[in-house]
């Protein structure tokens, strides 16, 4: 790919206009608020903004959409860290260590590192977007059913890393998640399964209601075990916010590895930020010298999850801009935004409208920088949320959870699913069964089933899994990852 420096400079000048910078700031703040609110995500925010951008020039309109996308992807971690409620599915892995850090009085440290990780993730994937977009896009096109099946198997091996000392409990919760995902219309046949004649069940179990139920509602059920007087509520210390230079230096490889994992997962259609964050989290744990600290408040876990989560933005844009294939729902809506402005995504975009493309690249960088600034300036106020007494906070959260979950599909059934998963999460946690594998099962179950069945239908055997180089590579990685996790578990047990 050749670079036309005059076009790059003019695109940079365009983005540096006061009007565009203002729109980027508004977009980022709006996106952050949407990301924080349960039930609302970047997809909805971008979709709502598209009609507004219609009257704007493509540069301004697309900058606004990109800013909302970056803000929306980043905002989810705030509630995940502070109150154990993931604003978006992508921030699910963040709460595994973020919330324990808050409980230990290190909320500021967790949020500070998450902010830097968000910025790093967006920048790493942005650099990949600029330099390797065509190569990565052609790599993504080589993914067929066998490759997707192998990737899903590899992603499922992260269960071993996020389970702790009891793998069979992790397997049970992962299988329960995959079983929950089989409810409703099948991905291959489009026919109802386990719907028991109830029409609402045919719509299936949504990821976000399940996620909010498992983590936020189960926490409410847990907190309701005792009455709290006004003098009794826990005051959580915030600690320092800005990550120390030594800390950033120590985690440089973690940032880099997680950024690349996030970009790679983002390139693959239908994967998204949730699996990226979990895979990255598992790899960070495998690479850590103190894996036993993961799940109890390890900052490395927060960094890995948030870097990978935001790196899917660049990854998603790579395949969306170069081939016109949306990697996730938000990219799909963003492509709609491009088309509304008369721009056709795909290879022709690089030839016919390079200034728009560079505008998108610069918007991505500036948005992530503005996001970092806004979050650092507001974090002291955000963290105060933790110190609001729970008897004030929880009724408000409950109302927002109900309204947010209902707003996803306008279905009361989803609210019921949220509460049912709340009870499930509460009971499983009491019995020391890990919850993250359950979410991983819900995310990966339908992907694995659909690709596995399509592979068998088209190829007639399991052989493509080991005959095709990419799928074989992922299967080998899956085995290595399992052995590595097993060795780590043994080492941790010996340390104890």
């Amino acid at each position: 790919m050749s670079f036309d420096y005059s076009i790059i400079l003019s695109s940079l000048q365009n983005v540096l206009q006061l009007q565009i910078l203002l729109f980027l700031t508004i977009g980022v703040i709006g996106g952050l608020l949407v990301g924080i609110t349960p039930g609302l995500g970047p997809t909805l925010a971008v979709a709502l903004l598209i009609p507004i951008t219609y009257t704007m020039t493509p540069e301004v309109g697309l900058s606004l959409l990109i800013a909302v996308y970056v803000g929306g992807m980043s905002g989810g971690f705030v509630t995940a860290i502070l109150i154990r409620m993931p604003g978006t599915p992508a921030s699910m892995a963040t709460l595994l260590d973020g919330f324990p850090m808050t409980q230990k009085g290190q909320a500021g440290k967790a949020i500070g590192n998450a902010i830097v990780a968000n910025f790093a993730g967006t920048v790493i994937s942005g650099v990949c977007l600029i330099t390797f977009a065509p190569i990565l896009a052609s790599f993504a096109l080589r993914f067929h059913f066998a490759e997707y099946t192998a990737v899903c198997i590899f992603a499922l091996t992260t269960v071993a890393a996020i389970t702790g000392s009891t793998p069979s409990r992790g397997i049970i919760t992962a299988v329960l998640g995959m079983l929950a995902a089989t409810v409703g219309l099948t991905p291959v046949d489009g026919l109802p399964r386990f719907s028991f004649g109830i029409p609402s069940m045919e719509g299936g179990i949504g990821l976000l209601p399940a996620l909010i139920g498992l983590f936020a509602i189960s926490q409410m059920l847990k907190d309701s075990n005792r009455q709290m007087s006004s003098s009794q509520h826990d005051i959580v210390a915030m600690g320092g916010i800005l990550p120390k230079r030594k800390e950033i230096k120590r985690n440089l490889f973690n940032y880099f590895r997680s950024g690349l994992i996030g970009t790679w997962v983002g390139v693959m259609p239908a994967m998204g930020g949730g699996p990226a964050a979990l895979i990255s989290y598992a790899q960070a744990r495998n690479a850590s010298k103190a894996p036993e600290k993961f799940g109890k408040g390890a900052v490395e876990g927060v960094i890995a999850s948030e870097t990978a989560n935001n790196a899917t933005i660049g990854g998603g844009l790579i395949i969306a801009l170069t081939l016109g294939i949306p990697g996730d729902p938000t990219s799909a809506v963003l492509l709609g935004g491009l088309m509304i402005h008369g721009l056709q995504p795909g290879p022709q975009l690089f030839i016919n409208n390079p200034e728009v493309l560079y505008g998108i690249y610069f918007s991505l960088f500036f948005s992530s920088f503005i996001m970092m600034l806004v979050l650092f300036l507001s974090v002291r106020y955000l963290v105060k949320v933790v110190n609001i007494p729970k008897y004030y906070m929880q009724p408000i959260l409950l109302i927002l959870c109900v309204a947010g979950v209902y707003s996803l599909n306008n279905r009361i059934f989803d609210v019921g699913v949220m509460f049912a998963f709340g009870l499930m999460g509460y009971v499983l946690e009491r019995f020391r069964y890990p919850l993250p594998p359950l979410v991983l099962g819900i995310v990966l179950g339908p992907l694995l089933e659909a690709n596995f069945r399509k592979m068998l239908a088209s190829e007639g055997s399991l052989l493509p899994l080991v005959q095709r180089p990419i799928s074989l590579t992922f299967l080998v990685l899956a085995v290595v990852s399992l052995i590595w996790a097993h060795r780590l578990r043994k080492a941790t047990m010996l340390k104890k």
Partner: protein
Amino acid sequence: MRLFLYLQIHFEITVVNVFMENSNSKKDSDELKETNQDRWLGIFLLLIGGGLFWRTFYFRTFDWDTLGMAFWPRVLLAILALCSVAHIIKGNIGNDVSEPIQKRGIILFFGAISYVFLLDIVGFYLLTPIAACFYSIWLRPFNKHTVITAFILAVGGTFVAYLIFELGMGVYMPRGIFE
């Protein structure tokens, strides 16, 4: 080849170690308490799984699809059954002791389920403030101040939800009796 041999030997050693640890840990009384809970959950999952497995025989089948839509759930249910049986027989799955399930948590859950059933009949804007008010009062010792703050919170929270979702996003919540 050497790597393969190394992995095989390492795997065998660890399997033996795990077996030894499990048999040793049976002596610990805390873990015996744990075993019962794992066992009860295993029995529960086995029963539920059995019911779901039976249900898969009623799924529609097609000649052109060799696997059919029952294939994947059956694979999952088989894994679940295996793990459940292992939990029932072996026990002592972990070294950590589980916490008892509290009555207040279960009461709250049933309150939440009642809320879901009433939502369509009563409507979001009437039922939610009442439910949130009760929830807030329930979390604290009862007194006049508690009731007033709970009422303000419940009405304020519902109003915020109205502003964000209905006015901001155009999502119409269930109207219930106001329909």
